Protein backbone atom coordinates (compact mmCIF):
# COMPACT_ATOMS: atom_id res chain seq x y z
CA UNK A 1 0.00 0.00 0.00
CA UNK A 2 1.46 3.31 -1.00
CA UNK A 3 1.14 6.37 1.17
CA UNK A 4 -1.14 7.95 -1.41
CA UNK A 5 -3.13 4.74 -1.81
CA UNK A 6 -6.27 6.40 -0.57
CA UNK A 7 -6.25 8.60 -3.64
CA UNK A 8 -6.68 5.60 -5.93
CA UNK A 9 -10.35 4.91 -5.67
CA UNK A 10 -10.99 1.22 -5.14
CA UNK A 11 -13.20 -0.55 -7.69
CA UNK A 12 -16.69 -0.74 -6.15
CA UNK A 13 -17.52 -4.23 -4.91
CA UNK A 14 -20.61 -4.49 -7.10
CA UNK A 15 -18.43 -4.20 -10.20
CA UNK A 16 -15.93 -6.68 -8.77
CA UNK A 17 -18.77 -9.13 -8.16
CA UNK A 18 -19.99 -8.88 -11.74
CA UNK A 19 -16.52 -9.35 -13.21
CA UNK A 20 -15.78 -12.35 -11.00
CA UNK A 21 -19.11 -13.95 -11.84
CA UNK A 22 -18.60 -13.56 -15.56
CA UNK A 23 -15.29 -15.38 -15.33
CA UNK A 24 -16.47 -18.17 -13.06
CA UNK A 25 -19.55 -18.81 -15.20
CA UNK A 26 -17.44 -19.30 -18.34
CA UNK A 27 -15.85 -22.23 -16.58
CA UNK A 28 -19.07 -23.48 -15.00
CA UNK A 29 -20.93 -23.49 -18.28
CA UNK A 30 -18.21 -25.55 -19.93
CA UNK A 31 -18.01 -28.03 -17.11
CA UNK A 32 -21.71 -28.47 -16.57
CA UNK A 33 -21.66 -31.93 -18.01
CA UNK A 34 -18.86 -34.35 -17.08
CA UNK A 35 -20.86 -37.00 -18.97
CA UNK A 36 -20.44 -35.02 -22.17
CA UNK A 37 -16.67 -34.91 -21.75
CA UNK A 38 -16.73 -38.69 -21.29
CA UNK A 39 -18.78 -39.11 -24.46
CA UNK A 40 -16.39 -36.82 -26.31
CA UNK A 41 -13.43 -38.87 -25.08
CA UNK A 42 -14.93 -42.17 -26.18
CA UNK A 43 -15.87 -40.77 -29.59
CA UNK A 44 -12.36 -39.40 -30.17
CA UNK A 45 -10.93 -42.78 -29.16
CA UNK A 46 -13.25 -44.58 -31.52
CA UNK A 47 -12.05 -42.52 -34.47
CA UNK A 48 -8.37 -42.66 -33.55
CA UNK A 49 -8.41 -46.39 -32.96
CA UNK A 50 -9.10 -46.86 -36.67
CA UNK A 51 -5.55 -45.64 -37.25
CA UNK A 52 -3.50 -46.23 -34.09
CA UNK A 53 -3.29 -48.36 -30.96
CA UNK A 54 -3.81 -46.12 -27.97
CA UNK A 55 -2.63 -46.51 -24.42
CA UNK A 56 -5.96 -45.84 -22.74
CA UNK A 57 -4.57 -45.78 -19.19
CA UNK A 58 -2.42 -42.70 -19.78
CA UNK A 59 -4.99 -40.88 -21.84
CA UNK A 60 -5.85 -37.31 -20.81
CA UNK A 61 -8.46 -35.11 -22.43
CA UNK A 62 -9.50 -31.90 -20.69
CA UNK A 63 -10.86 -28.46 -21.27
CA UNK A 64 -8.34 -25.76 -20.61
CA UNK A 65 -9.52 -22.20 -20.20
CA UNK A 66 -6.43 -20.04 -19.77
CA UNK A 67 -6.96 -18.06 -22.94
CA UNK A 68 -10.46 -18.97 -23.97
CA UNK A 69 -11.69 -22.54 -23.88
CA UNK A 70 -9.43 -25.13 -25.54
CA UNK A 71 -9.62 -28.88 -25.73
CA UNK A 72 -6.26 -30.26 -24.63
CA UNK A 73 -5.53 -33.92 -25.29
CA UNK A 74 -2.56 -36.10 -24.53
CA UNK A 75 -2.99 -39.43 -26.28
CA UNK A 76 -0.06 -41.85 -26.03
CA UNK A 77 0.29 -44.01 -29.12
CA UNK A 78 1.42 -47.60 -28.77
CA UNK A 79 1.65 -48.41 -32.44
CA UNK A 80 0.41 -47.36 -35.85
CA UNK A 81 -2.02 -49.67 -37.45
CA UNK A 82 -0.92 -51.35 -40.66
CA UNK A 83 -2.86 -50.34 -43.68
Amino acid sequence: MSFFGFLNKKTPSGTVAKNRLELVLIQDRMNTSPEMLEMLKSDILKVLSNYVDIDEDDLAIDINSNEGPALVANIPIKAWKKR
Partner: protein
Amino acid sequence: MGEVIVITSGKGGVGKTTTSANLGCGLAIANKNVVLIDADIGLRNLDVVMGLENRIVYDLVDVVEGKCRLKQALIKDKRYPNLYLLAAAQTKDKTAVSPEQMVKLCDALREEHDYIIIDCPAGIEQGFKNAIAGADRAIVVATPEVSSVRDADRIVGLLEAAEIKNIRLVLNRLRPDMIKRKEMMTVDDVVDILAIEVLGLVPDDEAIVTSTNRGEPAVADNNSRAGLAFRNITQRIMGNDVPFMELEETGGFMAWLKKTFRIKN
Protein backbone atom coordinates in the same frame (compact mmCIF):
# COMPACT_ATOMS: atom_id res chain seq x y z
CA MET B 1 -56.64 -26.71 -16.88
CA GLY B 2 -54.35 -25.36 -14.19
CA GLU B 3 -50.73 -24.38 -14.54
CA VAL B 4 -47.87 -25.86 -12.52
CA ILE B 5 -45.13 -23.41 -11.51
CA VAL B 6 -41.98 -24.50 -9.71
CA ILE B 7 -40.13 -21.98 -7.51
CA THR B 8 -36.44 -22.88 -7.46
CA SER B 9 -32.99 -21.37 -6.89
CA GLY B 10 -30.22 -23.91 -6.36
CA LYS B 11 -28.82 -22.05 -3.39
CA GLY B 12 -30.63 -22.21 -0.07
CA GLY B 13 -31.82 -19.22 1.90
CA VAL B 14 -32.52 -16.86 -1.01
CA GLY B 15 -36.30 -16.78 -0.55
CA LYS B 16 -37.90 -19.73 -2.35
CA THR B 17 -40.32 -20.53 0.44
CA THR B 18 -41.14 -16.85 1.06
CA THR B 19 -41.76 -16.37 -2.66
CA SER B 20 -43.92 -19.51 -2.86
CA ALA B 21 -46.05 -18.45 0.12
CA ASN B 22 -46.50 -14.88 -1.13
CA LEU B 23 -47.35 -15.85 -4.70
CA GLY B 24 -49.75 -18.52 -3.46
CA CYS B 25 -51.56 -16.00 -1.25
CA GLY B 26 -51.37 -13.30 -3.93
CA LEU B 27 -53.03 -15.54 -6.51
CA ALA B 28 -55.66 -16.60 -3.96
CA ILE B 29 -56.41 -12.93 -3.19
CA ALA B 30 -56.90 -12.48 -6.96
CA ASN B 31 -59.62 -15.17 -6.71
CA LYS B 32 -57.61 -17.97 -8.26
CA ASN B 33 -57.86 -21.49 -6.93
CA VAL B 34 -54.35 -22.34 -5.75
CA VAL B 35 -52.47 -25.31 -4.30
CA LEU B 36 -49.06 -24.82 -2.71
CA ILE B 37 -46.87 -27.92 -2.59
CA ASP B 38 -43.90 -28.12 -0.24
CA ALA B 39 -41.49 -30.43 -2.08
CA ASP B 40 -38.76 -30.09 0.53
CA ILE B 41 -39.27 -33.51 2.09
CA GLY B 42 -37.46 -33.86 5.42
CA LEU B 43 -37.08 -30.09 5.86
CA ARG B 44 -40.59 -28.76 5.56
CA ASN B 45 -41.09 -25.05 6.13
CA LEU B 46 -43.84 -23.75 3.90
CA ASP B 47 -46.34 -24.76 6.60
CA VAL B 48 -44.81 -22.44 9.23
CA VAL B 49 -44.37 -19.58 6.77
CA MET B 50 -48.07 -19.93 5.95
CA GLY B 51 -49.06 -20.27 9.61
CA LEU B 52 -50.63 -23.69 8.97
CA GLU B 53 -48.25 -25.88 10.96
CA ASN B 54 -50.92 -27.01 13.42
CA ARG B 55 -53.28 -28.30 10.77
CA ILE B 56 -51.21 -30.99 9.09
CA VAL B 57 -52.74 -34.44 9.21
CA TYR B 58 -51.53 -35.99 5.97
CA ASP B 59 -48.61 -34.99 3.76
CA LEU B 60 -47.19 -35.37 0.25
CA VAL B 61 -45.63 -38.77 0.97
CA ASP B 62 -48.94 -40.08 2.41
CA VAL B 63 -50.62 -39.11 -0.85
CA VAL B 64 -48.10 -40.78 -3.17
CA GLU B 65 -48.03 -43.89 -0.97
CA GLY B 66 -51.82 -44.07 -1.15
CA LYS B 67 -52.29 -43.73 2.64
CA CYS B 68 -54.94 -41.08 2.06
CA ARG B 69 -56.86 -39.46 -0.74
CA LEU B 70 -55.39 -36.34 -2.33
CA LYS B 71 -58.30 -34.20 -1.10
CA GLN B 72 -57.72 -35.28 2.51
CA ALA B 73 -54.12 -34.04 2.41
CA LEU B 74 -54.96 -30.59 1.07
CA ILE B 75 -54.94 -28.19 4.03
CA LYS B 76 -57.34 -25.32 3.56
CA ASP B 77 -55.82 -21.93 4.36
CA LYS B 78 -57.39 -20.09 7.29
CA ARG B 79 -57.62 -16.73 5.46
CA TYR B 80 -58.39 -17.66 1.86
CA PRO B 81 -60.91 -20.43 1.17
CA ASN B 82 -59.51 -21.03 -2.33
CA LEU B 83 -55.93 -21.65 -1.16
CA TYR B 84 -54.60 -25.07 -0.16
CA LEU B 85 -51.32 -26.43 1.12
CA LEU B 86 -49.92 -29.89 0.53
CA ALA B 87 -47.25 -30.21 3.21
CA ALA B 88 -43.98 -32.10 2.90
CA ALA B 89 -43.29 -35.14 5.09
CA GLN B 90 -40.91 -34.32 7.89
CA THR B 91 -39.74 -37.83 8.83
CA LYS B 92 -38.95 -39.14 5.35
CA ASP B 93 -36.29 -38.13 2.82
CA LYS B 94 -36.26 -37.02 -0.82
CA THR B 95 -36.23 -40.60 -2.14
CA ALA B 96 -39.73 -41.21 -0.73
CA VAL B 97 -41.14 -39.64 -3.93
CA SER B 98 -40.26 -40.23 -7.59
CA PRO B 99 -40.48 -37.79 -10.51
CA GLU B 100 -43.17 -40.01 -12.10
CA GLN B 101 -45.30 -39.76 -8.96
CA MET B 102 -44.91 -35.97 -8.97
CA VAL B 103 -46.05 -35.78 -12.59
CA LYS B 104 -49.12 -37.84 -11.71
CA LEU B 105 -49.85 -35.65 -8.69
CA CYS B 106 -49.52 -32.44 -10.71
CA ASP B 107 -51.81 -33.80 -13.42
CA ALA B 108 -54.45 -34.66 -10.84
CA LEU B 109 -54.25 -31.19 -9.24
CA ARG B 110 -54.35 -29.44 -12.62
CA GLU B 111 -57.88 -30.72 -13.14
CA GLU B 112 -59.42 -28.70 -10.32
CA HIS B 113 -57.09 -25.80 -9.57
CA ASP B 114 -55.88 -22.74 -11.50
CA TYR B 115 -52.33 -22.68 -10.17
CA ILE B 116 -50.14 -25.29 -8.52
CA ILE B 117 -47.06 -23.69 -6.96
CA ILE B 118 -44.21 -26.03 -6.01
CA ASP B 119 -41.66 -24.92 -3.44
CA CYS B 120 -38.48 -26.69 -4.57
CA PRO B 121 -35.76 -27.74 -2.11
CA ALA B 122 -32.24 -26.29 -2.38
CA GLY B 123 -29.71 -28.32 -4.33
CA ILE B 124 -29.81 -30.10 -7.69
CA GLU B 125 -30.33 -33.69 -6.56
CA GLN B 126 -33.38 -35.93 -6.26
CA GLY B 127 -35.54 -33.32 -4.49
CA PHE B 128 -34.94 -30.83 -7.31
CA LYS B 129 -35.67 -33.43 -9.97
CA ASN B 130 -38.93 -34.35 -8.23
CA ALA B 131 -40.00 -30.73 -7.88
CA ILE B 132 -39.47 -29.82 -11.55
CA ALA B 133 -40.82 -33.07 -13.02
CA GLY B 134 -44.42 -31.92 -13.38
CA ALA B 135 -43.80 -28.20 -13.90
CA ASP B 136 -45.01 -26.17 -16.90
CA ARG B 137 -42.97 -23.12 -16.00
CA ALA B 138 -40.26 -22.14 -13.54
CA ILE B 139 -39.47 -19.11 -11.43
CA VAL B 140 -35.82 -18.87 -10.43
CA VAL B 141 -35.28 -16.86 -7.25
CA ALA B 142 -31.88 -15.22 -6.77
CA THR B 143 -30.32 -12.49 -4.66
CA PRO B 144 -27.72 -10.11 -6.14
CA GLU B 145 -24.80 -12.03 -4.67
CA VAL B 146 -22.12 -14.04 -6.47
CA SER B 147 -23.01 -17.39 -4.86
CA SER B 148 -26.72 -17.06 -5.56
CA VAL B 149 -26.31 -15.91 -9.18
CA ARG B 150 -23.81 -18.65 -9.90
CA ASP B 151 -26.23 -21.30 -8.60
CA ALA B 152 -29.11 -19.69 -10.47
CA ASP B 153 -27.12 -20.02 -13.71
CA ARG B 154 -26.64 -23.73 -13.08
CA ILE B 155 -30.34 -24.13 -12.32
CA VAL B 156 -31.33 -22.34 -15.54
CA GLY B 157 -29.13 -24.80 -17.45
CA LEU B 158 -30.77 -27.77 -15.75
CA LEU B 159 -34.29 -26.42 -16.32
CA GLU B 160 -33.51 -25.90 -20.01
CA ALA B 161 -32.15 -29.44 -20.21
CA ALA B 162 -35.44 -30.63 -18.68
CA GLU B 163 -37.22 -28.76 -21.50
CA ILE B 164 -38.99 -26.25 -19.30
CA LYS B 165 -39.37 -23.39 -21.73
CA ASN B 166 -40.86 -20.63 -19.60
CA ILE B 167 -38.14 -19.64 -17.09
CA ARG B 168 -38.35 -16.28 -15.33
CA LEU B 169 -36.25 -14.53 -12.70
CA VAL B 170 -37.31 -13.05 -9.38
CA LEU B 171 -34.49 -10.94 -7.99
CA ASN B 172 -34.94 -10.84 -4.25
CA ARG B 173 -33.55 -8.79 -1.38
CA LEU B 174 -32.42 -5.83 -3.47
CA ARG B 175 -30.85 -2.96 -1.54
CA PRO B 176 -31.32 0.25 -3.58
CA ASP B 177 -28.98 2.17 -1.24
CA MET B 178 -26.16 -0.32 -1.86
CA ILE B 179 -26.82 -0.43 -5.61
CA LYS B 180 -26.58 3.36 -5.64
CA ARG B 181 -23.19 3.19 -3.91
CA LYS B 182 -22.18 0.52 -6.46
CA GLU B 183 -21.63 -1.94 -3.64
CA MET B 184 -24.26 -4.35 -4.97
CA MET B 185 -24.78 -5.73 -8.46
CA THR B 186 -27.54 -3.95 -10.34
CA VAL B 187 -30.60 -5.63 -11.82
CA ASP B 188 -29.06 -5.17 -15.27
CA ASP B 189 -25.81 -6.82 -14.15
CA VAL B 190 -27.66 -9.95 -13.02
CA VAL B 191 -29.93 -10.03 -16.06
CA ASP B 192 -26.90 -9.67 -18.39
CA ILE B 193 -25.25 -12.61 -16.71
CA LEU B 194 -28.23 -14.97 -16.48
CA ALA B 195 -29.84 -13.95 -19.77
CA ILE B 196 -33.40 -14.71 -18.63
CA GLU B 197 -36.42 -12.46 -18.46
CA VAL B 198 -37.26 -10.73 -15.18
CA LEU B 199 -40.61 -11.49 -13.58
CA GLY B 200 -40.13 -9.44 -10.45
CA LEU B 201 -37.86 -7.28 -8.33
CA VAL B 202 -38.29 -7.58 -4.57
CA PRO B 203 -36.62 -5.05 -2.26
CA ASP B 204 -35.08 -6.15 1.02
CA ASP B 205 -37.80 -5.48 3.59
CA GLU B 206 -38.10 -6.01 7.33
CA ALA B 207 -41.77 -6.78 6.79
CA ILE B 208 -40.73 -10.16 5.36
CA VAL B 209 -39.17 -11.08 8.70
CA THR B 210 -42.07 -9.80 10.79
CA SER B 211 -44.74 -11.32 8.57
CA THR B 212 -42.94 -14.66 8.55
CA ASN B 213 -42.71 -14.45 12.34
CA ARG B 214 -46.49 -14.31 12.41
CA GLY B 215 -47.12 -16.80 9.63
CA GLU B 216 -48.92 -14.21 7.51
CA PRO B 217 -47.35 -13.64 4.06
CA ALA B 218 -46.45 -9.97 3.36
CA VAL B 219 -48.33 -9.91 0.05
CA ALA B 220 -51.50 -9.07 2.02
CA ASP B 221 -49.75 -6.17 3.81
CA ASN B 222 -50.48 -2.94 1.96
CA ASN B 223 -47.71 -1.08 3.80
CA SER B 224 -44.95 -3.49 2.81
CA ARG B 225 -42.73 -2.70 -0.21
CA ALA B 226 -41.90 -6.38 -0.64
CA GLY B 227 -45.62 -7.10 -0.38
CA LEU B 228 -46.26 -4.70 -3.27
CA ALA B 229 -43.50 -6.37 -5.29
CA PHE B 230 -45.17 -9.76 -4.76
CA ARG B 231 -48.58 -8.35 -5.70
CA ASN B 232 -47.02 -7.13 -8.96
CA ILE B 233 -45.46 -10.53 -9.63
CA THR B 234 -48.84 -12.15 -9.02
CA GLN B 235 -50.35 -9.92 -11.72
CA ARG B 236 -47.56 -10.78 -14.17
CA ILE B 237 -48.06 -14.52 -13.54
CA MET B 238 -51.70 -14.05 -14.56
CA GLY B 239 -50.51 -12.40 -17.76
CA ASN B 240 -51.13 -8.76 -16.82
CA ASP B 241 -48.51 -6.22 -17.80
CA VAL B 242 -47.56 -4.31 -14.65
CA PRO B 243 -44.67 -1.81 -14.60
CA PHE B 244 -41.76 -2.58 -12.28
CA MET B 245 -41.94 -0.61 -9.05
CA GLU B 246 -39.46 2.16 -8.25
CA LEU B 247 -36.90 0.52 -6.01
CA GLU B 248 -35.86 3.84 -4.55
CA GLU B 249 -37.76 4.83 -1.41
CA THR B 250 -40.15 7.61 -2.34
CA GLY B 251 -41.97 8.18 0.94
CA GLY B 252 -40.68 9.65 4.20
CA PHE B 253 -39.77 13.08 5.47
CA MET B 254 -36.34 13.26 3.82
CA ALA B 255 -37.77 12.44 0.43
CA TRP B 256 -40.45 15.10 0.90
CA LEU B 257 -37.78 17.60 1.95
CA LYS B 258 -35.61 16.83 -1.06
CA LYS B 259 -38.54 16.99 -3.41
CA THR B 260 -39.88 20.23 -1.96
CA PHE B 261 -36.54 22.02 -2.01
CA ARG B 262 -35.35 20.27 -5.15
CA ILE B 263 -32.23 18.93 -3.50
CA LYS B 264 -30.36 16.56 -5.77
CA ASN B 265 -28.06 13.89 -4.45
